[in-house]
């Protein structure tokens, strides 16, 4: 009886599986985005499979914290999927150097991406690209339109206007001008320093100059960024030193704070929680009419397993990922995560669309600590967290912050390019 049942089950399995093996190639996607499981299986993969009936795709995510470890084990054991979601910069570069990721430089669709978009998945010499850039997040400021209307405030464009708006909200007294704290430290560095800084160091010009050693963190552009951050402190909530990231999020979505410096990834959550009208504005500039530099930070890409069993099918999928069709699908499914493709796409979410429109009228750059400069000891990114929080807390002067960062970098980094 029992044996019969197992036999019957096995038969059913074989019968079901046969047609798949006979005609279809199955590709597995390794990813840490377990939040996106339904987006991939219900919205993205079906579109591709319809056009390519001979290829079957399986999205196989791991939890974000375990991803790097699990992926390495799978790659070493030869059980990793054909398509590998790639983290930006060194984590993926190491995989490429270990010959785990295939070279995709000659993929025809690569021309659809700018050099900034590719910068996170390229060798230091800029010769080999090893992943198709998927998405970035854009930094900026969210504001509460209702509070702005109530207090008759104009959306600030220049730094002077920004400070005037903060002053006006503080004077009114009903709302916290700036929802931000320094307890988690990364907000000070990521949503503060890397958000407003590009306007001072002229985006890519400054970022590449740092890597080439032509600029230093002790230069006026950087000191100025920290000075501006320090001037925010009086407008942050009382006791901001122990205010954490979720605290500031709630302070803003509850309508108790007027402005929130952050990035596009907040869109889905904020649209769900906020009961007021949301608006966004770009990092303020020196004088009206100055070019605006925004941080359009490369975050996620897709590479190919160098040991893939079906490289042709995998390349076909990767080629599809470079098309405007994929760009539109993906960016609409995940508002706040924007395709890195040059293709003109339209988004249904108005806030996301506004963020995206900035790309057309500002110059884009990425966080300056991510490429090459965070490889040594002391770690630049960690130092930036610590130092930026200390500057806002008033325990470190901007000049001392610049000196500490540059001294740390000088210890191990010798610019060679």
């Amino acid at each position, binding site marked *: 009886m029992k044996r019969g049942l197992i036999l019957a089950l096995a038969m059913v399995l074989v019968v079901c599986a046969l047609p798949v093996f006979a005609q279809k190639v199955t590709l597995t996607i390794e990813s840490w985005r377990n939040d996106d499981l339904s987006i991939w299986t219900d919205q993205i993969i079906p579109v591709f499979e319809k056009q390519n009936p001979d290829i079957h795709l399986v999205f196989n995510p791991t939890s974000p914290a375990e991803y790097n470890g699990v992926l390495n084990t799978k790659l070493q054991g030869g059980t990793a999927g054909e398509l590998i979601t790639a983290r930006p*910069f*060194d984590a993926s570069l190491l995989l490429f150097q270990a010959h785990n990721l295939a070279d995709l430089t000659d993929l025809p669709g690569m021309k659809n991406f700018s050099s900034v978009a590719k910068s996170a998945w390229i060798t230091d010499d800029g010769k080999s690209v090893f992943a198709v850039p998927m998405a970035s997040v854009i930094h900026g400021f969210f504001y509460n339109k209702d509070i702005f209307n109530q207090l008759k405030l104009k959306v600030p464009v220049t730094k002077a206007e920004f400070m005037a708006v903060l002053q006006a909200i503080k004077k009114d007294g009903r709302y916290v001008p700036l929802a931000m*704290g*320094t*307890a*988690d*430290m*990364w907000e000070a560095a990521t949503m503060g320093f890397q958000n407003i800084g590009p306007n001072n160091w002229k985006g890519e010009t400054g970022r590449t100059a740092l890597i080439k050693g032509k600029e230093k963190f002790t230069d006026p552009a950087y000191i100025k960024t920290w000075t501006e951050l320090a001037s925010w402190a009086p407008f942050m*909530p*009382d*006791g*901001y*030193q*122990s*205010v*954490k990231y979720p*605290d500031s999020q709630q*302070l803003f979505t509850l309508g108790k704070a007027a402005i929130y410096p952050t990035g596009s990834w907040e869109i889905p959550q904020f649209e769900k929680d906020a009961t007021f009208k949301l608006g966004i504005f770009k990092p303020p500039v020196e004088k009206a009419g100055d070019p605006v530099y925004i941080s359009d930070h490369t975050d996620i890409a897709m590479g190919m397993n160098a040991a893939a069993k079906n490289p042709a099918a995998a390349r076909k999928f990767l080629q599809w990922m470079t098309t405007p069709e994929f760009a539109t699908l993906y960016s609409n499914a995940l508002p706040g995560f924007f395709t890195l493709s040059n293709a003109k796409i339209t988004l249904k979410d108005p806030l996301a669309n506004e963020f995206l429109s900035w790309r057309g009228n500002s110059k884009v750059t990425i966080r300056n*600590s*991510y490429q090459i400069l*965070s*490889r040594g*000891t*002391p*770690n*630049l*990114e*960690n130092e930036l*967290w*610590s130092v930026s*929080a*200390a500057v806002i*807390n008033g*325990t*470190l002067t901007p000049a001392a912050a610049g000196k500490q960062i540059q001294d*740390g970098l000088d*210890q191990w980094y010798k610019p060679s390019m």
Partner: protein
Amino acid sequence: MLDVTHAKRFPFYLIVFLGPAVAIYTLFMIYPLLDSLRLSFFTTTQDKREVFNGLGNFSTLFGNSNWAPRFWGALKNNLIFFCVHMVVQNPVGLLIAALLVGSVRGRVFYRTVLFMPTVLSVVIIGFIWQLILSPLWGVTPSILKAVGLGSLFQPWLGLSRSALVTVALISVWQFVGIPMILFYTSLIGIPDELLEASRVDGATKLQVFWRIKFPLLLPMVGIVAVLTFVGNFNAFDLIYTMKGALAGPDFSTDIMGTLFYRTFFGQQLQMGNPTMGATVATMMFLIIAVGVSLYTLWRSRVQTYQL
């Protein structure tokens, strides 16, 4: 004759009884410990090979301008963390135990309530206390304001001068139940005859405590101290939950456990460094070993009373 052969035979049942525990302990405790001690003498080269480095890692840890301030800072913070526990947690535990031994109404209730935080998850403790002390939503600022002391409120967890002591006191709040219960069991183990005799001799309550009970408690005081020492120098979870692996602000809450975690596993863009991590772990092991040896030495010298 029969007896002699019996005595000579190896007691094989001991292997059966001890075997599983020894095997598991060796596999999961002794081997990893020895291996991380070994790892602390190695370093990783550019092409990911481990090469012998002698005491190089240790001289880096003690002398290098990047590592030394972090290591000595963590050690100093850890000592402060330990002192707060010794000065607050253990005396308060003893005081509560002494009060509970007397005929307090609701003794079982207090005993349970005071022990409860010990069994709660650190994540919950961290979350609750951050909420209590939060300058935005916390009850502390509103209570202080209600009694007219609003100006005394500070975001203690976020200021570099007070963060460490605040976290230490939260840890004290959580773990005060352990010394309490240990002292309590010792106190109720003291024979009534001794206490009755002292009372007949005319001793006051304080005299009974300091002259009779405390000397009998002394071995337990030692045990509590050494447990606190080992626990504090292995501490990590509460600080990681509340302040993250960078143990801010300005590394003011950084202790050996967070330093080890950051070094070994990495943090954000910083890649993990297993050999330096093992070096930090070895130092933690040595510090704890020295502490426990000192305790053993003290234990063999001090005069204890057998009841």
